């Protein structure tokens, strides 16, 4: 049978804990769940292949948020992330991460992942953030996925590659019961009954359209189409602060990080066309992105990452990282343009919008045990609401989710779902394959994402949003009534478009709900240009209520680590001011 030919089929399996997504958080969640109860069945479901899936497909250059005794304290880290997020943080989860992450670093070290040490044998932590010191380079960062995979095999985790989860199943009393998935190469459907489900499905990174016009030239791994956000939404889970978009400073056109976290500690910095610094700190925050955006439009752009003043040996050292891990084709890209970091600065631009709590704060709402608002459903990594959690946060919170989910599975039996829900989902999934004629998924996707750029990208203008929502509704109608999929691969893309469309709607809805500006560029509303702490010092939770998208306020939990009044606006002062 040729690959991609559509096969009609439906089978059912069951397991104790189902982990969906085998990138960063997922493997750790599966591993911890299995170690918690070695007799239990743990299934790791992955749309691509666990060996090379997710944001760290080609490894990572380092840890961006390592809280290492002697360099930083959990209190200090919690304070910094709270301030960087304009105060809208449930600190308990951030504090728990900060307390646990060192243990995870030691565990990763035992897996064979090395971290940079100085001549005394201490971790060589670097400063990139505004206040504290948390960046720890990984000299063999390209081996991360391999090291994780070895652990999964050793623990006998059941891995199912090339299955895309499409919807979650619940019992009539609202508890999680499993998930429906589809094979991305045959379109055969698989129902997985589970006592607990952990979503680790990454960012919504295919939401905006990159300025290059190449649909898959996204900042995030382009496989991360926001399926987790869409699935959580349709299961009735709450999603937090989706209006706090992810927007990043990237190498123009290449659309990957330059990367200031790697080069900054060696002395590289962001500069304008005059060669002057204009931001205090290269740590990615909405406030920093607003200054970046302003500089680009001010006539003082383009913006560059400045390296050429450094010693050639230092530049070679930076290159050896940038051109080996995370996005190794950076070297090829610069070579193609004849750019040598020794003589030329790196032209930077800002990325398309997306959802990603890894760098901002937009995610499926979770508490400090990685529990969503649906009993038995967990989330971790870039798609869960713990802010700025990066790779180490995915590992650490994935670990929390795995342990708690196995405890849940150990104390609950399978919940019963309605067979009619499966039949309905099968019908929804397969509909584009039943049409003889229509619009291919790539066109629906391009149009949707172009509309996201035209109407939803900040600055957010109410009138533009209203028009954008109308245009998106028209595109949705095309998607539902006319989209075709002629083989299993096209069906995969057709299903991804549906996630992208849901995320676009959620981005618009959440942005209109919060009537203030906050998080710098991430939620800059021209009709409400000021921060309004009196009315909006709160989370916003978006969810599906009686089939309709709704938003509500949720109070910020009392702080564990108090923030003094004169510290609250430290991240608001990103622009370098001329001083006498």
């Amino acid at each position: 049978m040729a690959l991609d030919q559509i096969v009609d089929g439906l089978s059912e399996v069951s397991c104790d804990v189902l982990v969906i997504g085998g990138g960063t958080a997922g493997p750790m969640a599966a591993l911890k769940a299995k170690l918690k109860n070695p007799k239990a069945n743990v299934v790791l479901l992955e749309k691509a292949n666990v060996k090379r899936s997710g944001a760290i497909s080609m490894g990572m250059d380092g840890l961006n948020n390592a809280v290492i005794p002697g360099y930083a304290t959990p209190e200090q880290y919690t304070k910094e992330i709270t301030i960087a997020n304009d105060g809208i943080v449930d600190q308990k989860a951030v504090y728990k991460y900060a307390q646990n992450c060192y243990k995870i670093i030691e565990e990763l070290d035992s897996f064979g992942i090395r971290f940079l040490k100085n001549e005394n044998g201490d971790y060589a932590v670097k400063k990139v953030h505004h206040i504290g010191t948390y960046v720890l380079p990984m000299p063999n960062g390209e081996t991360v996925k391999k090291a994780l995979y070895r652990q999964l095999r050793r623990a006998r985790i059941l891995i199912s590659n090339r299955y895309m989860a499409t919807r979650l199943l619940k019992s009539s009393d609202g508890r999680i019961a499993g998930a429906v998935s589809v094979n991305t190469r045959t379109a055969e459907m698989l129902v997985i009954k589970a006592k607990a489900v952990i979503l680790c499905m990454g960012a919504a990174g295919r939401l905006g359209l990159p300025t290059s016009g190449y649909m898959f030239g996204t900042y995030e791994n382009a496989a991360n189409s926001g399926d987790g956000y869409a699935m959580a939404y349709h299961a009735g889970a709450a999603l937090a602060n989706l209006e706090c978009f992810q927007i990043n400073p990237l190498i123009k056109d290449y659309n990957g990080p330059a990367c200031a976290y790697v080069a900054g500690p060696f002395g590289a910095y962001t500069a304008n066309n005059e060669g002057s610094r204009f931001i205090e700190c290269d740590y990615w925050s909405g406030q920093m992105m607003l200054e970046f955006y302003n500089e680009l439009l001010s006539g003082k752009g383009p913006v560059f990452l400045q390296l050429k003043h450094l010693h050639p040996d230092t530049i070679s050292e930076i290159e050896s990282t940038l051109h080996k891990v995370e996005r190794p084709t950076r070297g090829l890209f610069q070579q193609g343009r004849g750019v040598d970091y020794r003589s030329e600065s790196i032209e930077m631009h800002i990325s398309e919008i997306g959802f990603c709590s890894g760098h901002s704060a937009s995610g499926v709402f979770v508490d400090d045990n990685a529990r969503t608002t649906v009993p038995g459903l967990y989330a971790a990594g870039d798609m869960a609401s713990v802010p700025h959690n990066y790779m180490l946060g995915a590992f650490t919170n994935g670990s929390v989710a795995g342990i708690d989910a196995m405890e849940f599975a150990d104390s609950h039996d399978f919940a019963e779902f309605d067979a009619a829900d499966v039949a309905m989902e099968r019908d929804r999934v397969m509909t584009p394959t039943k049409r003889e004629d229509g619009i291919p998924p790539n066109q629906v996707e391009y149009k949707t994402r172009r509309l996201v750029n035209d109407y939803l990208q900040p600055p957010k203008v109410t009138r533009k949003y209203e028009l954008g929502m109308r245009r998106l509704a028209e595109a949705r109608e095309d998607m539902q009534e006319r989209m075709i999929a002629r083989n299993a691969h096209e069906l995969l893309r057709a299903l991804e478009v549906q996630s992208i469309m849901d995320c676009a709607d959620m981005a618009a809805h959440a942005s209109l709900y919060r009537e203030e500006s906050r998080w710098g560029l991430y939620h800059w509303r021209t009709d409400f240009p000021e921060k309004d702490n009196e009315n909006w010092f709160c989370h916003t939770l978006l969810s599906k209520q009686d089939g309709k998208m709704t938003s509500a306020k949720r109070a910020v939990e009392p702080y564990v680590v108090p923030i003094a009044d004169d510290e609250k606006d430290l991240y608001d002062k990103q622009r370098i001011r001329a001083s006498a």
Partner: protein
Amino acid sequence: MPLASYQTSVPVVVDDAKCIADKGCTVCVDVCPLDVLRISDMTNKAYMAYDECWYCMPCEADCPTGAVTVNIPYLLR
């Protein structure tokens, strides 16, 4: 509505002389996060079937014979 095919130069190139897909190797097809590589029915060699590339490199890095080259997609080159 009738469909037309759309011309595009694909970023991933496979050297048929080095590719051992005809001996049963599927490594590049297996590891691709976007699932865009296939084995040709005609040549039994790997090729890029869908221009949906993140220029991420697992196909090139994991190929046992060095047959795969990832180029930067033309639109962003």
